């Protein structure tokens, strides 16, 4: 094996580790070859589609289709204690907090207007 010094940020890959390389069992090597051949088949299929001069449409990626389906069709929501807490904290509580904030602020401004002490920040003509 070539003398491969490891770079500071790149660790030696598992397949090039001399301690491991000669210890692999035959079954593991066969499985690894099978996985490599599957990868090569997929890559060949993709490259055939990519370089097909008569292709007009997009190359479809089934993994992307599965991913978007999973993202959009998640009917796995269950109302548990944690989800109810999150829902209440972000969906219900802010409404009450905002009500209190707005009401006090506007009532203060209304009181100032009634007392005549409110200075208008802009000169608006309607």
């Amino acid at each position, binding site marked *: 094996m070539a003398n491969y010094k490891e770079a500071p940020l790149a660790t030696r890959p598992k397949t090039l580790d001399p301690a491991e390389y000669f210890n692999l069992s035959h079954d593991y090597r066969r499985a690894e070859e099978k996985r490599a051949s599957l990868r090569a088949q997929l890559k060949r299929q993709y490259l055939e589609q990519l370089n097909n001069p008569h292709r007009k*449409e*997009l190359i479809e990626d089934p993994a*992307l289709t599965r991913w*978007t389906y999973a*993202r*959009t069709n998640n009917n796995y929501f269950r109302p548990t204690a944690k989800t109810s807490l999150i829902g209440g904290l*972000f*969906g219900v509580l*802010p*409404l009450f907090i*905002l*009500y209190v904030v*707005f*009401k006090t602020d506007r009532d203060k401004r209304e009181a100032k207007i009634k007392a005549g002490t409110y200075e208008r920040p802009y000169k*608006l003509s*309607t």
Partner: protein
Amino acid sequence: MLKVLIPTIMLFPTIWLASPKWLWTTTTAHSLLIASISLMWLKWTSEAGWTSSNMYLATDPLSTPLLVLTCWLLPLMILASQNHISPEPISRQRSYITLLASLQTFLIMAFGATEIIMFYIMFEATLIPTLIIITRWGNQTERLNAGTYFLFYTLAGSLPLLVALLLLQQSTGTLSMLVLQYSQPLQLNSWGHMIWWAGCLIAFLVKMPLYGVHLWLPKAHVEAPVAGSMVLAAVLLKLGGYGMMRMMVMLDPLSKELAYPFIILALWGIIMTGLICLRQTDLKSLIAYSSVSHMGLVTGGIVIQTPWGFSGAIILMIAHGLVSSALFCLANTAYERTHSRTMM
């Protein structure tokens, strides 16, 4: 007003009698002509507000920009749908454009109405062509679900409005906007009156949509074809805003206290739907949630009842109408070329 309404009604014979080769060209040209004529409304001739043409239809500076927006949208919708409708048989293409033109007619009559009942009837009437467009020409199977949500949310919101309008007619004797703007402020001090107040506004809040009742919008926008999405986003949402602006005139003394829930829902809705936008993978869904966010700001502007708020609301409605329908158009061009709405 009739200078635009009659050509719009004449669009129907144009659609059905044009030869198949010239169908799209003639309808686009006809609707562009209507759109150019509609620009004459922008001339504000009467200082008193309503530039009316007859007893039932009139325009004023609130409805004119929305009317011009409606008229300009029809040629854009026809242009945008030309590609995805062309494989279909001719009579189906004609039906599609007929639905778009009928929407246009109902919307012109809605925005130009002087009687609130006429506005209400046209408000409801626009639901039907939109429902047919969504459920018949949408692309995914979820369009039936989307049509159901759209129809029933809006109908459930607008039934209280009908009752409220009938009560208003009973108590004031008229429902004409020209008269009601000068009426005495109503005595609104009981629980029944509060429910009446809410009934007047809920229909428009569902249509806007307000954050709590916005669930129909992403579904309807995603499942609709491009012209349906364009008209939904650009004009139908503004029907809600316009209706709210008209109704706020007579709802006055009670609105100081009762408006708080809606202000809060609108503002919190801006933030929440903005955050939901960040997590979307479907492009049309993202534009739909951004529509909810913008309309939340419009709702906030209308409900606080200041002149600046109203002006801001109108400007945002027009701007959003143009931009959102253009966005849906762009999303459709991407979808036509890649048949996928994922944003990756």
